[in-house]
């Protein structure tokens, strides 16, 4: 991947258009609004991929809420080799004890990261802990996760856009698309 990436040219297929995403996010927001009426809701977004999703979702939820952000190191990243363990790169800024917490994820595939996060956040004694994901790729599931809100169940393809990246690129696409295999094959 060079410095002058033609983002859209690298997309083989648009899987979800901007309109489809926004319509579904509105539906999720309406469901969450109904489910959390009278609750002390805190949305927790997992950086970096889930940021656009949470930004749109929170504006579709009509109950008072707080937001917080977490970032954890990913396997294979720069911090992997030093410790061999997940590192919390950014922890929650406030306590979630007694709060109704909704984790906002961009995509669930293996479930490993989310499995870790659920255990970690569960230790902070929230009143409830639920999961909302924009995309679910069940074909790749290694660890079963109970997902409460799912935007789209997608096929087993490598997707980018709307927060999802490959090599830190493509996050700013307004749609979700399938990355052409030759993009990552040539980068291998």
């Amino acid at each position, binding site marked *: 991947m060079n410095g002058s990436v033609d983002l859209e040219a690298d997309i083989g297929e648009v899987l979800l258009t901007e309109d489809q995403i926004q319509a579904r996010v509105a539906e999720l927001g309406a469901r969450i609004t109904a489910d959390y009426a009278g609750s002390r809701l805190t949305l927790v977004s997992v950086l970096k991929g889930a940021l656009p999703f949470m930004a749109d979702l929170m504006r579709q939820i009509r109950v008072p809420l707080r937001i917080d952000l977490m970032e954890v190191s*990913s*396997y*294979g*990243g720069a911090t*992997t080799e030093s*410790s*061999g*363990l*997940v*590192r*919390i790169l950014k*922890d929650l800024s406030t306590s979630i004890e007694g709060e109704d917490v909704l984790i906002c994820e961009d995509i669930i*595939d*293996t479930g*490993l*990261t989310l*499995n*870790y996060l659920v*255990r*970690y956040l*569960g*230790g902070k004694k929230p009143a409830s802990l639920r999961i909302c994901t924009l995309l679910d790729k069940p074909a*790749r599931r*290694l*660890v*079963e996760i109970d997902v409460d809100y799912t935007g789209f169940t997608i096929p*087993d393809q*490598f997707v980018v856009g709307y927060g999802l990246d490959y*090599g830190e690129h493509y996050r700013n696409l307004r749609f979700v698309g399938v990355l052409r295999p030759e993009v*990552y*094959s040539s*980068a*291998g």
Partner: protein
Amino acid sequence: MTVASQPDGGVSAEAPAPSPAGPAFAHASEAEMARILDFYAVRWEYEPSTFPILWNLDGDVVESFSPDFYLPDLDLYLEMTTLRQRLVRKKNRKLRRLRELYPGIKIKLFYARDFRALMLKYGKLALVDSLSGTSGQVVPERGVAVDPAEDLPEAVVPRVEAPRSRRPEGRAQEEPSIR
């Protein structure tokens, strides 16, 4: 901040990291999977159970299956294969047999394509070629029991029903965990 798994399955930012003794993995992809599981604080055991899946008329075990990993907190067995998709028929057959005989266990077969996707996700795609197939064998002589049915065409593998109790008998290496 280093995070480690806790005995109750939770994770803590303060606890010391576990340091499991490393078993002799049969394949480098298994070692990579163990590192991934460690990274995400998922406890694992390597080949802890052997499940007989075929008996001869005398009741002797002639074929068994030892899943690569058991994840105790998830009550899940994980079997990995880096064989090309067209070559996994035999393993699929063994897995079907295992599921028939031990319907209570949860097991997932992790194919080469799954491993490739995982490596792509983690930006380690370049490792895939070196870890795939026989070239990825890191410990070629670890005394793995020979599977007597492994080299037979599927059509001539004897079909003998399991004992009615479905309780493994014969020379099982270890009492299988039927969950």
